[in-house]
């Protein structure tokens, strides 16, 4: 039986695991920490703007399990907040066990607290990966979904230091990139000023620590917008944000709060004393990152060079997805690239032609567009997401954006890709 080994249990790794299992492989998913979903444990926003199109494309292609799970676990559906329409917010506190069950139903073996530290390479192939502790794990094909954030030395050098985020590097050890260990030179994203990396774009307040009035509004509407007092407005942080779809002036002039189970605050970090000067947040405290007064995780340090089938350049049996595959932002982007990487991993073992998604689909176009953009340093300064910034504009211009489920299904059918992820290849 084909054995697919996936390193990194974030949304991208979960997407890759499902696609590989559906295509008929035996799947082993390795995760460094004690929980799956990575930064998805504190995210929660999906289906906003073009992400709706991407999620429906994945569903039509037969890889919709994770989106169905998110839908089923949503606290709010179809809400709007500055710059964003028809967003859904899944409950970050209950999502992980649900995803674990979905994966287990497909027979995927999940090993948590299992950190990959090295690869064994023979010629242009990865033969095995080595775990912290020396155990050697063999596989036919490997998927690197280890992400690009941290570890703490990088956050120190390119950000404001370790802010004790959900990645918990000091406790579970640093992320180790399979791609780098396979001696492939990685690419780094840039900030607007040309320095490396970008900072995660949101932090989370404990919901019990905010006023009852705001909490009730948040739970009813899903969103609360509070104007920031003039003296506290800080526009400088916008350029450093990973999530450029939220790097618009309205997010500096207002505090945008979303109900994801936590009270999500759409800014990378905010001094707690200043935050507490805002009515209703007098007792606020951070849920994630714990040092939200000071900073947030730094990402895009270690993107793999890969083609549009998500095969890593220079290694025959290594695929990548999520942030590892390009300057992508968000859970939806992670899942859709994960699906493609997991599916193509199985195709590698069967000697089949790799699937490359056509540019008439938003998912195919974003992958190809990001890879084109990454060829120059200006492109590395931007971040790409279905939900905003340059790529959502492009979606609208090229009529790729749609919030009509039937229309999206028809587009997928026209490309002969209906249920492509759902069919067993073996």
């Amino acid at each position: 039986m084909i054995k697919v080994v996936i390193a990194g249990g974030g949304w991208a790794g979960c997407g890759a695991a499902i696609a590989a299992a559906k295509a008929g492989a035996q799947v082993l998913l390795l995760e460094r920490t004690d929980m799956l979903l990575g930064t998805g444990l504190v995210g929660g926003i999906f289906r906003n703007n073009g992400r709706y199109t991407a999620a429906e494309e994945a569903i039509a292609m037969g890889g919709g399990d994770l989106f169905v799970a998110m839908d089923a676990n949503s606290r709010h559906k179809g809400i709007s907040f500055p710059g964003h329409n028809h967003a859904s917010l899944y409950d970050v506190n209950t999502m992980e066990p649900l995803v674990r069950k979905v994966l287990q139903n497909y027979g995927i073996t999940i090993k948590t607290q299992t950190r990959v530290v090295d690869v064994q390479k023979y010629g242009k192939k990865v033969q095995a990966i080595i775990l912290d502790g020396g155990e050697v794990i063999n596989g036919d094909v490997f998927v690197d979904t280890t992400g690009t954030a941290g570890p703490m030395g990088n956050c120190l050098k390119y950000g404001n230091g370790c802010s004790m985020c959900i990645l918990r590097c000091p406790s579970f050890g640093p992320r180790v990139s399979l791609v780098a260990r396979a001696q492939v030179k990685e690419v780094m994203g840039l900030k607007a000023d040309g320095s490396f990396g970008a900072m995660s774009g949101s932090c989370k307040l404990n919901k019990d620590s905010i006023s009852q009035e705001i909490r009730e509004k948040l739970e009813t509407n899903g969103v609360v917008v509070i104007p920031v007092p003039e003296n506290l407005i800080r526009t400088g942080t916008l350029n450093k944000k990973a999530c450029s779809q939220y790097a618009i002036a309205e997010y500096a002039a207002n505090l945008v709060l979303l109900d994801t189970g936590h009270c999500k605050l759409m800014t990378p970090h905010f001094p707690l004393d200043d935050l507490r000067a805002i009515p209703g947040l007098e007792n606020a405290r951070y849920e994630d990152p714990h040092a939200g007064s000071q900073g947030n995780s730094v990402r895009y340090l270690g993107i793999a060079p890969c083609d549009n089938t998500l095969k890593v350049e220079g290694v025959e049996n290594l695929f990548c997805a999520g942030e590892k595959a390009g300057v992508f932002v968000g859970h939806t982007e992670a899942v859709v690239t994960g699906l493609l990487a997991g599916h193509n991993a199985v195709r590698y073992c069967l000697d089949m032609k790799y699937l490359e998604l056509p540019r008439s689909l938003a998912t195919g176009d974003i992958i190809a567009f990001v890879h084109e953009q990454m060829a120059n340093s200006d492109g590395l300064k931007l971040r790409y997401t279905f939900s905003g910034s340059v790529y959502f504009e492009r979606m609208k211009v090229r009529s790729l954006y749609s919030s009509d489920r039937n229309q999206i299904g028809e587009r997928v059918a026209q490309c002969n890709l209906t249920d492509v992820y759902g069919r067993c290849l073996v």
Partner: protein
Amino acid sequence: MLRKLAPSCIDINSAYCPCMLADTNNCNVCSQLSGKDLCECNWSGLCILYERQWQDKAKSCRSELPNLRQESDSSITRRELIAPETYLLEFAVSDELAQELKKTGAFVFLRRQDDPQYFHFPVGVMKVSQNTIQVVIEAVGPKSKRLLTADLITVRGPYYNGVFGQPWIDNITCGTILLIAGGMGQPPALPIAAKLRANDNEVIAVLAPGKIGKIFIDSELREMGVTVYCIDSMRRSGLNELRQWFDADGLPDLLVSAGPDEQHHAAIAAMQAAGVNLPMAATNNATMCCGEGICGSCECLTKDSRTIRVCKIQTDFIQLGRIDPQ
């Protein structure tokens, strides 16, 4: 149990980390402190880059450098000839240093107090009782001979990389260990056996007099509950003895070789001949001058063609390239 030791720095996250190597962009573990742009470590412990940042802040309000090993003066209280040119020395150190020297593979640098710094040479610690340290030296070179001519000495320490495969020794419990020690391998064998016995291991020791011509730790080993076999020569009869252990039904869990490099290589060859592959710990015989990874005198080539400075880098002896005797 671990199957293979990943090369690592013996001083990592100790009171002596980050060291001068980090200050000079040559850290063995942190990629950023060796001149690279990004994190590339496999280390899950305190981040060395972070530690350095906090220590830099602390240094600005303290005069001394906290993570440099200090020198202290001491006087020799016992000097006993145990074999020709071989002396047991005893001297007192501070309680803190004595405590720190109780680890497996610990050693100190010694010199006559009024000699220049380049007279320092490394000596493995044989025994620590309260704040008294026992060592054995073979007075054969200018530095060791010179040490015997004065009562007042200077001690610098603690250093820790005296044994390759030290984690094997520290982590094994309720196992069976075959310990071979020849000549000047006996002093380091004593604390190793003590550590192994403290963790409820069964220890079988094969002792040979070696170049110094005397076995002197046998009675102490027996008192610890070690099964001791004394032989005339490791070269002539010891290796046959080893084969007998490797052919037996109950293979040992760990092989410890205390002695010269030739003995380590012979032990590896004996394992290969018997078709067994046991974890192995071996004493570190590299020539050392500074002990801090700076001078380069202990540099060794590994089998995967990297040069490492073995005063600090902990690895399996078998990973080191063989330097054939001329």
